[in-house]
């Protein structure tokens, strides 16, 4: 069972992601802000983190940088999830160490495909 952490301050988005990915293959954890995301990432070591950029307090970019700079959590695959669609935001996410980038609004099917893709490439 893969562990998957979704961090977003909008509970509607968390609920959407959960509903999309819910299956026997994934165990889904939720964090509603950056601090909680860091805490859950450290304690549960998820395989994948879907991380919203604009969150109150610790932002998604800061969470990403912090996790990637810590050898214990650097292995977590991070997909940035955000309503910001400009190239500069994409670059900022990449600079922070995120593996991929997903733009809101998104299609749940596309998200599912993306997540499956990440895990299958992990296996190979």
């Amino acid at each position, binding site marked *: 069972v893969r562990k998957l952490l979704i961090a977003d301050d909008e509970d509607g988005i968390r609920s*959407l992601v959960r*509903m999309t990915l819910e299956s026997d293959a994934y165990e889904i954890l939720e964090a509603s802000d950056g601090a909680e995301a860091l805490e859950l990432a450290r304690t549960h070591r998820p395989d994948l983190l879907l991380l919203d950029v604009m969150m109150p307090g610790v932002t998604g970019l800061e969470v990403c940088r912090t996790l990637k700079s810590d050898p214990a959590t650097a292995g977590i695959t991070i997909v940035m999830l955000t309503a910001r669609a400009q190239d500069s935001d994409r670059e900022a996410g990449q600079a922070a160490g995120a593996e991929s980038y997903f733009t809101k*609004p*998104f*299609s749940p099917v596309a998200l599912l495909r993306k997540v499956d893709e990440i895990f299958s490439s992990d296996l190979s």
Partner: protein
Amino acid sequence: MKARGLPRSGVRRVTALLALVVLTAFAAGAMNLYATRKQLSDEVLGSNATTAKIAAETIFANLEVQRNLVAAVAQSLRENVESGDWSRSAADLRFMREVDPRIERAVLLDRQGIVRASVSEDPDADAERIGDNQARCECFTAASAANKPHLSRTINFAALVPHMVLSAAVRDAAGSAMGVVVAEIPISNLGLLTESLELDFSTRAPAGESSGSLNVFTDQGVQLTGVQRPGQSSPGYEVFRRAARTDRGTLRGALPGKPRDRLVAFRTVPETNWVVVVEQPASAASVVATTRRLVGLGAFINLILIAGAVIAGRLFRELEQERVRSSSILDSIPDGAVTTDATGLVTSVNPAMERLAGLLSGEVVGRPFDKVYPLLGPGNQPVDWDREFLDKVVRSNIVATSRGYDLSLRSRDGGIVPVSHMLAPILGRGGDLVGCVAVVRDVAYEKELDQMKSSLISTVSHELRTPLTMIQGFSELLLQRSMSPEREREALSRINASSERLARLIDDLLSVSRIESGRLVVRAAPMDLRAAADEVVIPFAEKRDVTVTATGAIPPVMADRDMVVQIVTNLVSNAVKYSTADAPVRIRLGAAGDSVEVTVEDRGIGLSREELGKLFQKFARADRKEVREVGGTGLGLYITKSLVEMQGGRIWAESERGVGSRFSFSLPVVKPAAAGPQPTPDGRTSRIPVPSAAEQVERPPGSRQRRDA
């Protein structure tokens, strides 16, 4: 644009005029050589007297020209001296020397007699003189006291080149002296002047006798002309004793440096302590007298000199006015303006530019523009000004303009000011490039607005995308998957909530747009605030403990009922949103002076001091999880505040984090003295277009209602 001085053409006109005067004088001297020789030994004294008279008048007229010039310069310096702008003052002194090159050095003393500016051929000597104290100098004390230019009575003969010194006070509007302009003119120039009038005294003087002469002495017998080294005083001679009592006379007597008696005529120069002495050997057998011819010529020379003095003074004033006109335009515009020559050397700057860059005109004039005003591009990288601007202007005579908000200027204190920059060619009469004018504008405010606009678009797009994501995502799931009825219901309710959220956001954005563009109309009428509050709380009270209480009688207020409902709804909705389900919300009404206050109090999450400060700003949402979780556009309180103020009311908030918040607003009561507005048939008063919220804030509370009444 004072640093530039007068237009060159003007200087040329004045100089040409003066040259004409001097030439005429020389011509007169030359013609005298051909004057009829006439031996009239009896008339020698009389002839000498006439010569002395002409010489004295010529010297006087010449002095008048210079006095006029010094006075005009002193007058033109008023403004610069008043503001203590010594660098610009130096430009006027320079001009004075251009008009009359006989002035070797021009100096400006301040109110205390300290040298503030000095202009001569020798900049090093000038620099040394700055700061010298001349408070005890006659040129300072006498000019400060007198209303007209002063010719110093004392001459420093010890100096390498003895000078006569003209000085005039710079006076403020009230007439008190703020400084003194001093012109130093070598005495040798006086000699040149008298030589130009030199008569052809006989070369046939008896052996051992020197021929006749015309010289100027001080009243102490110090010879000023005709000697190598002036300075020796010989007060004992009869001629000076006589000159002390009367302004003219003839005598037979001794003179300094002359061993035998001479035929002497003397004449004092008006308004000076100078005496013109004309003499010839007493034993002369033949004396050349050119009297008759000279009388005519002398009068002519005097006329020209006096006319020159008058015209020079008038010309100077006219040019000064022209300069004031052209400089006042650039001095008055609020944007920085810099003129340069065709190679980019700064020729003048206006006060706005001095403020913008923190550099005074004296510090930048004559230096390359790009060295004194370093322009920075994106990322604060230096901009190649020559290539970006100057080359384009020089090559094609077109205006070179900066674009966007990437350009900034580094000021003297190291501060970086966002600016726009425009460089335009200044074309001469023949269409050739004579210089450039640069306009540098502080665009800090525009840049801020631009950034606010970008941030607004970014915020709005984020606010739109989030509910849109949910609508798209949940609807796609519903269409593609078979889900349990509970899941389907959750998805549908999420879609519904997101649609409502989008609708609310659009409503709020439209309200903000209407408020800010001034299209929102206040339909004010007397209304019962209590009834409106009661109506608002009904839907809230179904789920929560929300109550309305009033202290004392609540007089009707003058307000727009729809707006009041929106205001109270927003505040109650916030109170409910940001407190737990069991916490009460209390609405209290009470009359306070000539207004009614409404307070909405909750025991919710409260606000920190910092959050309170930003509370009523557009898109201001506390950066906190518990705030984010409840959702909102960040526009509600901004709209609420605008609506309250639009009706002449006031809104404020008190809060403590973790304890609760109290939001209050007041609306003005209907004035009892006024008959009250006449309701239109539909029960409302006439429509009044409302200016934007920003303008509205300036209006004292209640003024709208008085206008209605």
